[in-house]
């Protein structure tokens, strides 16, 4: 077996190889119980309050894409990571790493979108930092955002809270962002109006949690897609998951493009979708709350938590067969023939 002694792109794919990097290298060094939870954000108590704290860096290429740009993506991403802890996101920081030569107008468009996104999400950007690096030391612009949010008292949401019987809900069609970015990057023409789904999900989460509805897990399936997110939750909670292919919403053109390129939509990124694991008796109420929100109109139940097959995700296929859904290994690659 060849040992990989350098960082390769797969280490950043969000799949198994990234996970291993976190588990083998980061966890032992930063060794602490909060980090070890491996949720979308850290959850901890401070001065009598429960806080969620999260950070994420954005290096998307292209920086402008149908449906958004790296700016609103960076705001929405961190807003969502905090919201997935059941928290109300409040304050954000923004760090910019800009490559020498970036057109001022590009920076302006990116910042304007960031401002709009923050306003929509109802968060305040309270601190920031800008660095400019020589040409070639970065690719146009990289953005880091971090944020904190407050978790309401009665909310108990985490990746390890899924229980047998829970219904698994997705808030809408999957793989939109992933396929848009991929096709844009490769200059493939996409003869349809599919755009990135980048959106802040905190208001929808607010509706979902209102009235003490029993939501156990929330996760936004970004890098690595729904397939990877479900596997993470199955492992964290020590349960098996069963999903139904027929129920998973994929837009026609997205399915077509995936078919053509050999991608599995289950592993493509989403930037404005969430997965919710909900107690069966509250599933209808949560669905209704989601459908009442702009970003959850197409919310559906796609599966359930089962007591056997701990740590594994199964899918019943359209033709009535069964197969496992594994975690993404590295970057998905287009097929050859």
């Amino acid at each position: 077996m060849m040992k990989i002694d350098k960082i390769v792109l797969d280490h950043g794919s969000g799949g198994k190889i990234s996970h291993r990097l976190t588990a083998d290298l980061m966890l032992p060094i930063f060794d602490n119980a909060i980090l070890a939870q491996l949720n979308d954000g850290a959850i901890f108590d401070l001065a009598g309050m429960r806080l969620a704290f999260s950070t994420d860096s954005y290096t998307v290429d292209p920086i402008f894409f149908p449906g958004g740009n790296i700016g609103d993506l960076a705001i929405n991403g961190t807003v969502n990571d905090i919201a997935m802890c059941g928290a109300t996101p409040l304050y954000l920081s923004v760090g910019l790493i800009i490559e020498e030569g970036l057109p001022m107008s590009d920076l302006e468009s990116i910042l304007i979108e960031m401002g709009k996104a923050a306003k929509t999400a109802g968060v305040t950007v309270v601190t920031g930092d800008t660095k400019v690096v020589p040409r070639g030391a970065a690719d146009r612009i990289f953005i880091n955002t971090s944020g904190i949010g407050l978790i309401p008292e009665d909310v108990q949401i985490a990746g390890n809270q899924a229980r047998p019987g829970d219904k698994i809900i997705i808030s809408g069609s999957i793989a939109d962002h992933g396929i848009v970015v991929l096709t844009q990057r490769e200059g493939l023409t996409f003869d349809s109006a599919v755009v990135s789904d980048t959106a802040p999900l905190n208001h929808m989460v607010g509706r979902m949690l209102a009235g003490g509805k029993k939501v156990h897990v929330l996760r936004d399936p970004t890098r690595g897609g729904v397939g990877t997110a479900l596997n993470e939750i199955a492992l964290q909670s020590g349960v098996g998951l069963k999903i139904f292919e027929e129920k998973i919403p994929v837009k026609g053109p997205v399915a077509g493009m995936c078919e053509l390129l050999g991608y599995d939509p289950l592993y493509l990124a989403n930037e404005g979708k969430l997965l919710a694991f909900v107690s069966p008796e509250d599933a209808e109420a949560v669905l209704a709350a989601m459908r009442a929100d702009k970003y959850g109109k197409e919310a559906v139940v796609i599966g359930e938590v089962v007591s056997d097959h701990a740590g594994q995700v199964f899918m019943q296929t359209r033709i009535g067969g069964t197969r496992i859904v594994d975690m993404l290994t590295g970057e998905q690659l287009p097929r050859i023939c």
Partner: protein
Amino acid sequence: MSIKYMDEYRDSEISRKLVEKIGNLSRNAIRLMEVCGTHTVAIFRSGIRSVLPETITLLSGPGCPVCVTDQKEIDAFIELARTKDVIITTFGDLMRVPGTFSSLQQERADGRDIRVVYSTFDALEVAKKNPEKKVVFLGIGFETTAPTIAAAILAAVQREIENFLVISAHKLVPPALEALVATANVAIDGFILPGHVSVIIGLKAYQPFFEKHRIPSVVTGFEPTDILQAILILVEQVEKKYPRLENAYQRAVTFDGNAKAWNMMQEVFETVDAGWRGLGVIPQSGLKIRERFRAHDAARVFDIQVHGTQDPRGCACGEILTGLKTPPECPLYKTRCSPTDPVGPCMVSSEGTCAAYYRYHAD
């Protein structure tokens, strides 16, 4: 682009009916081989194996382009990547394939200029933008990719992009079928023949093979219903002892194939004996760039020396590609070999049988 009919052909109702018919018809235990890697993946992804009656065993054949690429060729690609002033352009699947001493992914991390492209024309653009470098495209794949590569070479000639080169490791499907049957180690009762390849070569390309061996053979597409339809036809042929060569993919495949693509391929390439992983050297099963285009042939322009090539120790890819073994029969499967740490190419490529088992198959 054919997007609209995807769902139609995925129709679960039709599929379930086909499954029922197959179940009713199948009496004798039979072994069917899907030759194409895209079929292998489609079969696993749609869970077809889990709905077929026990009488039917599906074997995966030598249809994953990355997997059949000979270890020597992989080593040669890596050697090329180490050559001064060379930019390698490749389909992504090759990146992680372990050569004897390294992989392209490792080489890229070590600073070699290796770029993943989605089409040969992207590679041509890379060549145009980097006139001071030699841009080599790693030409692997079957009759599906060969015409696009031929087209790129012709375009390079026409547009005078002299620094665009191809190293041709292309393979042809019909000679491989012949070799498979000739090894006689594998009893195959029917072939599910590749869809995309057949679009180019047409049904007629299989006729000599079929006439000689009279093994039931059906060309089909990649939707679950296409594949189930093909299985039903094969079961019918086997049960009635009435072997035929059939086309269940009429919406895309003709008898004669795509003449334009075929001619382009003939113009640029000539057939040669070629080494396949698992099958050894098969006569006239590879494509070599013709003398006329020698300036674009990396095999002629560079003196590539590879030494000490060895297949990955303990890897059974060769036997898996010929249907002799299934991945769980390889002692390394899921122990030392996984998609994160692949030992052989069958675990690397998304079309590889080991990877498909690993990803989709519930033990």
